[in-house]
C-alpha cells in the first residue's frame, strides 16, 4: 500500500473532513479493502480522529477492513428475490464455497456477501459475481455457475 497514493486520494477530495466517506470509497475501490495503515494516514491527513475513521470504516457495508478474495460473490436478498427463493440459493452457495456472508475462504478465492437489491428484480433470484449479474438462478445451477470462476 502506497502512502503517496493515499495522500493523492485525500487531496483529490479537497482535504475536507466531510469527504471522509468518499475518500474511503476510492481507497476501497482501488485496494479492495481498507488496510489499517491507510486508515491511520487518512485520519492524519484529514485531521479527523481515528475513532471517527474506524466507525465509518465499519458502519458502512461497502467497506472491508480485511482483504477480500479474488471473486466477490453477492447474493441478492432483496424482497423480490427473497420471494422467488433467494434464501435457498444462498444456502447452496454457502454449502459450495464453505463460507458465510461476510467471510472470505482460506485460499482468498471467494468472498461472499448478501446485498439488499441490485435493481434487476426481473431477473430474480440474482447472484452477482465480480459485477456480472447471473439471473433466474436455481439451486440446481449454482455449482455450474461457481465452477466458472477459478
Amino acid at each position, binding site marked *: 500500500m502506497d502512502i503517496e497514493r493515499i495522500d493523492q486520494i485525500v487531496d483529490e477530495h479537497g482535504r475536507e473532513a466531510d469527504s471522509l*466517506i468518499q475518500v*474511503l470509497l476510492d481507497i476501497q475501490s482501488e485496494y479492495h479493502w481498507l488496510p489499517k495503515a491507510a486508515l491511520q494516514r487518512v485520519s492524519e491527513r484529514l485531521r479527523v480522529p481515528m475513532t471517527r475513521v474506524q466507525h465509518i470504516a465499519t458502519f458502512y457495508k*461497502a467497506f472491508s477492513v480485511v482483504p477480500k478474495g479474488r471473486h466477490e460473490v453477492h447474493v441478492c436478498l432483496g*424482497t423480490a428475490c427473497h420471494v*422467488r427463493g433467494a434464501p435457498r440459493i444462498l444456502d447452496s452457495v454457502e454449502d459450495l464455497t464453505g463460507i458465510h456472508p461476510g467471510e472470505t475462504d482460506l485460499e482468498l478465492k471467494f468472498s461472499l456477501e448478501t446485498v439488499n*437489491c441490485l435493481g*434487476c*428484480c426481473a*431477473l430474480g433470484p440474482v447472484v452477482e459475481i465480480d459485477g456480472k449479474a447471473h439471473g433466474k438462478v436455481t439451486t*440446481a445451477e449454482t455449482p455450474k455457475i461457481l465452477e466458472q470462476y477459478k
Partner: protein
Amino acid sequence: MALLHSPEELERFRRDLCDKKDPDMPRISVCAGAGCLAYGAAELIESFKAEVEKQGLAAKVDTKGTGCPGFCERGPVVVIYPEEICYLGVGPKDVPEIIEQTIKGKKVVERLVYTDPNTGEKASRESEIPFYKLQTRTILSNNIKIDSKSIDDYLSIGGYSALAKALSWMTAEEVVDEVKKSNIRGRGGGGFPAGRKWEGSRDAPEKIKYVIVNADEGDPGAFMDRALLEGNPHSVLEGLIIGGYAIGAREGYVYVRQEYPLAVKNIKLAIKQAEEYGFLGENILGSGFDFTVKVHQGAGAFVCGESTALMTALEGRAGEPRPKYVRSNVKGLWNRPTVLNNVETWANVPFIINNGADWFTQFGTEGSKGTKIFSLVGKITNTGLVEVPMGITLREIIYEIGGGIPGGKKFKAVQTGGPSGGCIPEELLDLQVDFDALTEAGSMMGSGGMIVMDEDTCMVDVARYFIRFLTDESCGKCVPCREGLRQMDKILTNITEGRGKEGDIETLEELSELAIDASLCALGKSAPNPFLSTLRYFRDEYEAHIKDKRCPALSCKPLISHYIDPSKCVACMICLRKCPSQGITGGKNLIHVIDQDKCNNCGTCLEVCPPKFGAVRKFSGEPVPAALPEDQRKIVRKSKSK
C-alpha cells in the same frame, strides 16, 4: 466558458439540433438500463452497430443505448423508430434479421413482438402492448427516446426549457407557489407536500441553503430511481436547479448509493455536460443565478435514506439519525435550511413548471395528485417499472398491467412501502392507490416498491424477513429499535422454525408499540409495520406456526417435508441425480424415495421433477406417508400395443 448564455441562445441551439434530425431516419433504441445490461444489452448494441456498419448503413441508421423503458421482464428491449416497433427479448442472433426485415424491408419480425399469453394477439407498437396501455408514462416515456449520456438528446426533447422559463419569466416565489399549487407529495416515502417543504426553506432567514436529491433508494425491490437517474439524469438535474432557484440555494448535492455504479457514472457525466453548456455555474442563462452540484456516494447503509441520517453522512459521519425537533427544511445540512427530495419528485418539477400546476392536478385523486412510478416485482408475469396515475386500483396494476400471477398460482398479497410498509390482501385489491388509502390499509406508499406474493409465500416469513433486514440496517443508537427489533427477530425466527410459543404474538405486539412510540427515527418507528399488517390479515398463519408447528404456505424449511408420490413417479432419475444430499434412493423402473433423515428441504427435487409428472409434494404439520416397502417399488411398464 459556458456554451449558452441566454434562453434565446438555448432555443436557437435546440432548433438547430432538431432541424438536423431527420424524423424519418431509422433509429434503433436498445435499452441500456442496468437490468437489460445484465441480460447482455451491451453486446447487443455492439452487434447492431457492427451489422449496420457491415451493411454500409452507418450514415443512414442511428443506433443507441437508451434509458430504461420499464418492461424489464422481457428485456433486452429494442424499439425501432420512426415506426415505434417494439421487440422483446432480443439477442445478437436476431440482429441480421431485424436489420434486413425492419430497417431495410420496413416489415415487422413477428416472432419478436409482444404476444398476449391468453389470446395470442400480437402487438407491435409499444402503445398497443397491454403492459403499457394502462400506464400514464409522463416521466418514464422519455427514457427510451434518449441516449442517457447525451445532453443533446435531452435538449432535442425539450430539456432545460423549464429551467429557462423559471429563471427568465418566474420569480423564485412564483416557482414555489406553482409547486405548492400542484400539491405534489414527496415520492420517496414520506409523502410530505413538496411545495410546503420548499416554502419553509424559502422563508428561512439564513443566507446559505441547500437542495439535495435523495437517490439512496434502499427499499429492496424498488428500482424506479435507478431507472430515472441512469436513464434520464438531466431531468432530475433540471428539477434540482429549479428547486435551488426557488428556495435560494446555491449548492446542491446528489446522494446516490454506490450499489448503482451506472447511475453514479451517468449523473456525474450529466453534471459535467450541464456545466459545459452553462446550465450549472455562474449566471445561468444570464439570470444572475449561480448554482453548483456535487455527487456524494452512499457506502452501503439503508438508514442513510432517512433524511437526517443522509445529511449526517453528507457531513462525512456515520449515518446515525439525529433526534430533531426542528424540521430539516429550517435546520438541515450543517444546520442550514435544506430541501431534500426524492429523485422522482425532482423529475416531476420540470413538467410542473412547463405545463403548470393545473395540468398536474388533472391526474390523481383528491389527496394525491400526479403519477407514481412503481417497481412491480415478485410473483408477477410482467416484472418491471410502471408509471400510473394515483387512484388506479391495485387490481388494475397487478392483473391488467402486470399480467397476473405466473404459473397458475393464486394471488396472496402485495407488499408496498418497503420495510416500512405492509402487505395488502386479496380482499383489498380494489383499493385505489394513493398515499392515504394505502396508509389506512395498514401499509404505505413508500418509494414505490410493489412486491407481489402468491400462495407459496409464507407471511410469517415475510415479517421475519423485514425485521431481520431492519435489525441489520439499524444504526443502533436507540434502544427500542436496536434491542426491540433484535428480540422481535429472535421470536419470529423461533416461530418460523417451529419453536413458537403461547404469548409470542403478545410480546411482538408490545415490542411493536415500543418501537412506534419511542424510536428515534422513522426506520424504528415504521419497523413493526410488516409484522402488524401480516398479523392483521394473516393471523391464521401465525397461529398455525405456533400452535400446530405448521406452515400453511409450505415454505418454512424446518416445518416442511418433501415427499415423492409413488403414484406419479415414473423413475426418470432426474431428482435422484440432482439431490445435493444424495438422499433419494431408486433406480430405473424403481420408484424414487426420499430419505427423510438426509433431506434438508433444499427444494431441488421439486424444481427438477418434470411438470408433466409433478410427483414431488410438500407436507407440513403432519408426517409424510410411510415409504412403500422395497418390494413394491418396481414399476411395471405396460407394453406398447401396435
